[in-house]
């Protein structure tokens, strides 16, 4: 499995999550989103960039409340909720946004 970006193939798992986090580039995110008919806006990038920063520090995607709080601080309190995040990432911020950000899929009872 893999995703082709500008002639280079990036390995992914069965569900399309990047196998090697370090290979990620913004173009990979754009290509993944395009495959799912999503145009990445500035708002999407705010979330994706936060996910990557958090992962860098904690080796895990942020919990939903950590994410909504951070986005609320950055973009204003009206956007610090999961309703806003689901508008951006209809398949769920935890899963869809993690995928575009090159993070592994959150697993468990979630």
């Amino acid at each position, binding site marked *: 499995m893999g995703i082709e970006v500008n002639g280079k193939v990036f390995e992914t798992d*069965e*569900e399309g999550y990047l196998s090697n986090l370090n290979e990620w580039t913004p173009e990979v995110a754009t290509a993944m989103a395009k495959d799912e008919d999503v145009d990445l806006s500035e708002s999407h990038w705010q979330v994706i960039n936060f996910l990557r920063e958090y992962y860098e*520090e*904690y*080796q*895990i995607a*942020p*919990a*939903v*409340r*950590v994410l909504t*709080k951070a986005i609320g601080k950055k973009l204003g309190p009206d956007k610090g909720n*999961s309703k806003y995040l*689901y508008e951006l990432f209809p398949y*769920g911020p*935890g*899963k869809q946004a993690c995928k575009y950000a090159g993070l592994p899929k*959150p*697993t*468990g*009872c*979630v």
Partner: protein
Amino acid sequence: MADFEVPELQEIPLVPHIKEGAMAHSQPYIAKAPFQEALGFPGELVENWEEKVYEKMDDLRKRYRSFQVYLDSCVKCGACTDKCHYFLGTADPKNMPVARQDLLRKVYRSKFTFAGKFWTKLGMPWMVGAQKMDKGVLDEWYSYFHQCSQCRRCSVYCPYGIDTAEISMAAREIMDSIGVGQKYCNEILGKVFKIGNNLGLPQPALLNTLEGLEEEVEEDTGVAVKFPLDVKGADILLVTPSADFFAEPHVDGLIGYAKVFHESGISWTISSYASEAGNFGMFIGSYETMRKAAQRIRKAALDLGVKRIVFGECGHAWRVAYSFLNTLAGPWDFLDPNYPVPQHICEFTHDLIQRDKLTFDKSANDHRVMTYHDSCNVARGSRMGDKPGGQMEIPRAVIKACCNNFHDMPPETIGEATFCCGGGGGILTDDLMEIRVKGAQPRAEALKQVTENNGVTHMAAICAICKSQFTKVLPYYGFTMDQIVSVHQLVSDAIVLTKKD
């Protein structure tokens, strides 16, 4: 009008007309070698695997008398056929519990029964419903034993008390032993052993998340409610599903537990080492794996020196905790014998309510008309309190203590007859979305009925899987994802907090 009760008209079809092979295509992703090997299973399909299947089956029937009794005693009466939510939702006849079990039973017959061996030798195993193991059978096993959530509703109606879930667990254990495991369960179990929970949430991230919750609750309420982590000498160790830290509406339940602990004045802590209640070892039928996961709780309790263990809202955890914890990780003689070992958070809260230790402003939940989904493993695999049926009554009593509006769903869909959410027992994975959605149909129908007849707006549950599953699949049936809530979310919204020094 008649002087007797006229039956209510119901929607037809009540039992679907069968569609053969309707779900034969459904298979979860196979676990790759690293996930398999981390649990001590072969990385890929072993050589001579047909023989290995018989060997493992022989091992299991000798270890578990129940397994052999279940395989020998089915008389094909058909009582279970229309009891499975996956059959009702898919109409695939192989999702009738008897047919699912027979996928394994026919192989067992060919090797371990006199009639089966006799007719198999003559080349006519079908005379007695026997069949030798082959690749086609293995494919069907992989498909249909991952369309069973081990919820045991069928067992309630079986006149012989056959526990179909045990057959499904055995089938998965046999498949693991020949190198054919399910990615979802086995990857997660690897994370539990490496990091301590299903999510792979390491201690620093857990600490950061809990600190964030402390800030949030203090901002909301003005009261400093603590979320302690790894505190030695605390009275209570809370073991809760890691989804409670991570997802919605789970986290609102966790906030509820913290507020209850705060009001109780009893010290408590979460452990980063045993930061998972759910035990997926049960899903794959592996006693050794289940034991290894449960032992983490013992070690955490000893290391932290706690006196009591309380489990959060997690259905499968509660079955393992209530029914198996003593043999898996006991003896618990170092804990305080004056309290249940272990205790459920609903029992804990209910006890405080009984003793008038909590104050609620029920009007805080007046915007909700509640119903309650009994989680399968709580309803049929455990108990709460000291009376039969306590596992059904206590969560409802907690809800009613903090909500003014409550209506139950139809009786044949709750209590010990409850329908599984459709995502239990290792099915809660995106690669099984079709069976998850279809399996949720019976519950969605029951919910629709009370929504229309009683104005129900929200459904509460005490299982992380139920909550995640409903959040994801109810929208397919016209509901919204926020209609599913945690029981302790209702507690959290209504509880009146007092400031402590």
